[in-house]
Structures are given as structure tokens and as C-alpha cells.
């Protein structure tokens, strides 16, 4: 019994850690898509910018805290850069440009070896308080810190979307003609939403780097973006609570299905593909039959033209 607990506890810690990181990542996207109606298909780019910036700043001598701040700021800045050419146009241009950006960024990370060590990735970088916390308790420490960060992000986002600023975002999502008739600068509000969402993804990137201790370009494939989309839609678009629950459900599913190839006659490689087919079907079926998700409200859906 004791042994059982000994293996189960670290396993649960792992799932909770991964879920909390991707919950924060998805909360950023939920602000953009759920509350503002922006289709960002390149959200993973900001996770990558956050992770790489934090690690590289720290390795070139900046204190860890400042490096994380740099990662957050730079992610937000790239959100601004991408928003400028696309947010005045139809919503689907943002989808095309962001997905292109995330792939181009991955190519740069892969090929500019002098800067990023390319496909070899970076490891052996500093983690917060690594000299103070004993190694065997480090994940527990990280989990407590991450849950606190998640709580802070959640509470601030909840305040933000209930503020007058948040109400303008929602009105843009519903019908941009109304807020612009009231004299609101729709473009600027969208840009702010994209910047904040991207900065939150940057923070999640730094957190991911500290947890996995190794970053390489292929950690940041487009599929990570779509994981976040599924998490949001599963939990209920425009519900921050739903996003957190969605992340927990999704990563528990991913992690548990790693053992299912014992029951199915697939090779490991086929199992990976099979999992992605299930995820793709899930996304299609949710959008077709239950677009409001588990916790969402039908009237909160940004699905009207």
C-alpha cells in the first residue's frame, strides 16, 4: 500500500503540474478567443518565446526573475506585432498569419543554432530556488508555486473580464459595430486582448521550461495550440473556470491513454496517431453538437458572424 502511494503521488503531481501550466496557457487563449472572438492558431509561438527568452536571458547573466519578466514582455510585444497587420481585417486572417508565425518561429529556433542550439535544445539552465529546495521535493514546491500563480491569473482575469474593459471586449465579440458606434476603438481593444493573452502564454512558457528542464523547438509544434483550443471548447468557451477544468481533464486523458496500448494491438507509433485522431474527432464533434462545452453558456459563444 505504501509503495503504491509512493508511485501514485509523484504521478498525480506530474499531471497537476502539466495541467496547471497548460491551464495558464489556455487562459491566455480564452481571453483572446472566448472573450474577444480572436482566432489565434499560433498561440504556441508565445509559449516558445516565453520559454526561450527566459532561459536565454538567464544564461546570459540576467537574474531569473527579470528573465521571466523579459519573456512575458517579449511575448506581449510579438502579439502586438502580429496584431497590427491582421486585426483590422476579417477574423480569419489572424488565424492564417498566427499559424504561419508559429511555424516560421519554430524554423528559426531549429536553424539558428548559434542562438538556440537548434534541434539539440537547451538544458541545464537555472531553476528558481534550486539550491534551497531539496531535489526530491522540487516538484512539490513547483506545484505549490504554480497553483498560486494559476489562482492569481484566474482571479485577475475574472476581474478583468467583469470590468468595463472586459464588457467592451465581449461587445466586440458579439458585434463590433456597436462598440465602434459608441466611440470605442475596436482595433485597439483587440490588440490589447491579443497582447495580454500572448504575455500570459509567455509566462506559461517560462513555467514549462522550469518544469521540463529542457527546451527544444519541437516542444512547440502547432498541435500544442490545438490542445489549448480543445481545452477551452471542452471546458466552455468564455469560461475561465471551464478552461482550468478542461486542462485537467485533457491532460489526465493524455496521460492515462499512454498506457492503453497495452490493451490495443497498436504499435507505440500507431497509438500516437490514434490519439490524435480521437482528439481531432473530439474537436469536430464538440463544435458540431456541443459548442458550448461543459461549463459554457450558449449565449456566451462568439460564433455569430
Amino acid at each position: 500500500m505504501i509503495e503504491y502511494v509512493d508511485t501514485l503521488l509523484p504521478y498525480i503531481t506530474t499531471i497537476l503540474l502539466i495541467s496547471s501550466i497548460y491551464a495558464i496557457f489556455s487562459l491566455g487563449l480564452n481571453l483572446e478567443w472566448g472573450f474577444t472572438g480572436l482566432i489565434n492558431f499560433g498561440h504556441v509561438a508565445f509559449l516558445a518565446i516565453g520559454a526561450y527568452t527566459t532561459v536565454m536571458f538567464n544564461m546570459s547573466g540576467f537574474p531569473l526573475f527579470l528573465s521571466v519578466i523579459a519573456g512575458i514582455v517579449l511575448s506581449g510585444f510579438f502579439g502586438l506585432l502580429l496584431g497590427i497587420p491582421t486585426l483590422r481585417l476579417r477574423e480569419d486572417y489572424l488565424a492564417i498569419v498566427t499559424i504561419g508565425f508559429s511555424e516560421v518561429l519554430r524554423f528559426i529556433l531549429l536553424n539558428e543554432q548559434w542562438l538556440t542550439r537548434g534541434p539539440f535544445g537547451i538544458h541545464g539552465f537555472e531553476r528558481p530556488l534550486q539550491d534551497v529546495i531539496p531535489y526530491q521535493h522540487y516538484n512539490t514546491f513547483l506545484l505549490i508555486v504554480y497553483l498560486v500563480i494559476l489562482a492569481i491569473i484566474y482571479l485577475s482575469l475574472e476581474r478583468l473580464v467583469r470590468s468595463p474593459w472586459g464588457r467592451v471586449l465581449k461587445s466586440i465579440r458579439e458585434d463590433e459595430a456597436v462598440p465602434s458606434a459608441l466611440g470605442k476603438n475596436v482595433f485597439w481593444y483587440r490588440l490589447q486582448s491579443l497582447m495580454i493573452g500572448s504575455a500570459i502564454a509567455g509566462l506559461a512558457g517560462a513555467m514549462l521550461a522550469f518544469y521540463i528542464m529542457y527546451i527544444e523547438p519541437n516542444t512547440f509544434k502547432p498541435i500544442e495550440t490545438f490542445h489549448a483550443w480543445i481545452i477551452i471548447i471542452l471546458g466552455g468557451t468564455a469560461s475561465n473556470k471551464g478552461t482550468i477544468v478542461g486542462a485537467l481533464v485533457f491532460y489526465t486523458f493524455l496521460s492515462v491513454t499512454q498506457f492503453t496500448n497495452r490493451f490495443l494491438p497498436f504499435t507505440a507509433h500507431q497509438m500516437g496517431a490514434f490519439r490524435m485522431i480521437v482528439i481531432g474527432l473530439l474537436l469536430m464533434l464538440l463544435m458540431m453538437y456541443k459548442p458550448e462545452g461543459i461549463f459554457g453558456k450558449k449565449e456566451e459563444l462568439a460564433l455569430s458572424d
Partner: protein
Amino acid sequence: MQLVINGLVIGSIIAITAIGLSMIYKTLNFVNFAHGDFVAFAAYIALFANASFGMNLASAFLIAILATIVLGVLVEKVVWRPMRRKNASRTTLIIISIGLALVLRNTLIFIWGGSTRNYDIPVRRGFEFFGATITLNQVLVIIAAFILVFALHCLLSRTKIGKSMRALSDNIDLARISGIDVDRVILWTWVIGVGLAAAGGVLYGLVTAIRPDMGWYLLLPMFAAVILGGIGNPYGTIAGGIIIGLSQELSTAIIPTEYKFAVSFVVMTLVLLLKPEGIFGGAK
């Protein structure tokens, strides 16, 4: 010269695959992110018919196009038409297309694995042409693309269905009240669009390795061609495809080859910044 030829070859593939993307984008008013995976699907069916059943490439080509059209029609009937009935928004359709792309690509990986393949055809030596080497396959791609574009032109300008397709992509409500059977024309738009994507996919397999993600990496150049040519403008899309193909290949003279892919992204972003309706006109 070598770069120009390579650019023309890849450009004609981008052009014919992107036409379908452009037509569906305009007619059904959404970006189909699964379009590239139809391209890859066709290449795999051709590979399967050719390598596993020993068919010659011409019959494999036809079978692949037919199979892909069947798939496209199936998806239209099971997914897109019911969603139109529900008045689903553009964003809903875009997200569904992402799900569909994941399903298609991973089905290919599930069946055929993730490694690269090639058609079972004899490798012939290329011949010299103004100091550049051009292979028979490359010639074949360019000729086939010309024939397809010409056939499409005849279809759009001469036949009733082609004219209805253009009317629909111009204004769907106006087309409906003037008595056009909208569902039938949309079905034909899928048949033509997916059929061209399939043809492009089989041809692409002639000049590159066949991989499950070959369509995915073609998606960005296709988007760039569509935006450059103006959404819903087939002739603009063809020109856009050739321009993207050429600029991708010519760029390798000055920047590392790895960044070919980035060229379409840069071109696309510049067009969106400066002339979002495309350089040949189209929907904004």
C-alpha cells in the same frame, strides 16, 4: 535558371492546389485548414495504387483523384452541409476544419507510418536545358498543370455549372433567388476544388518525397497564393501560386534553404499590410 525551373514546378503545384482553397474560401466563406491534408491524402492513395498494386502512374493518378473527390463529397454531406443548415458561423467551420485536418493526417500516419516514401517508378536522368537540369517528372508536372488550368478555364467560362459557381462565389443570396440550386453547385465546387487539390497532390509526389505532413507544409504557400491573388479569384490564385513558387526558390540564392517556407509568410503578411484585397482584386 535552375531556380526558375524549380520555382515554376512548385509554383504550378501551389497554383492548382490553391484554386480549390480559394473557391471554397469565397463560396462557403471559410478557410479550410484541412485542404492541405486532402493534397497529402491523394498522394498516398496514388502511392498505394502504384506501389502496392503495381498500377502505372496514370491509372494511379485517376484513382487518387476519384478517391479524394469521394472523400471530399462525403465530408461535405456529413459535416459541411449539416453545419450550413444550422447556420454555423465562419469560426465554427474553421475550427471543425482543424479537427478534420488532424483526423486526416493522423489516419495517414496510422496506416502508412510517418516516414517518407516515393512512387515506384523508374528514375530517369534529367536533360540539359539552358544550363539547368530538368527532369521528366518536372516537365510532366508543368504540362499537367497547364492542361488542368485550361480545363478549369473552359469549365468556369463555358459551362452552366461553372457560371453558377462563379455566381455563387460572387453573391450566394443573389444566386439563390435567381434559381440556382445552391447545394448542388456547392457540391460541384467541392468536387472541382478537392479534385484539383488531389491532382496537385499526386503531381507533388513526383517531385518531392511523400510524407503525411506534405500537405500541411503546402498550406502556408497556398494561403499566401490565395491572399496574393485575391480570395475567390481563380486566375489571381494561379498567378499568386506561380509568384510564391518562384519567390520561394529564388530566395534560396540569398537566404538559407531552410527559410523557403518563411518566404510565403513574409509575402502574405506584406500583402495583408499593404493591399489586403490581393494584388489582382478579390474579396476583402
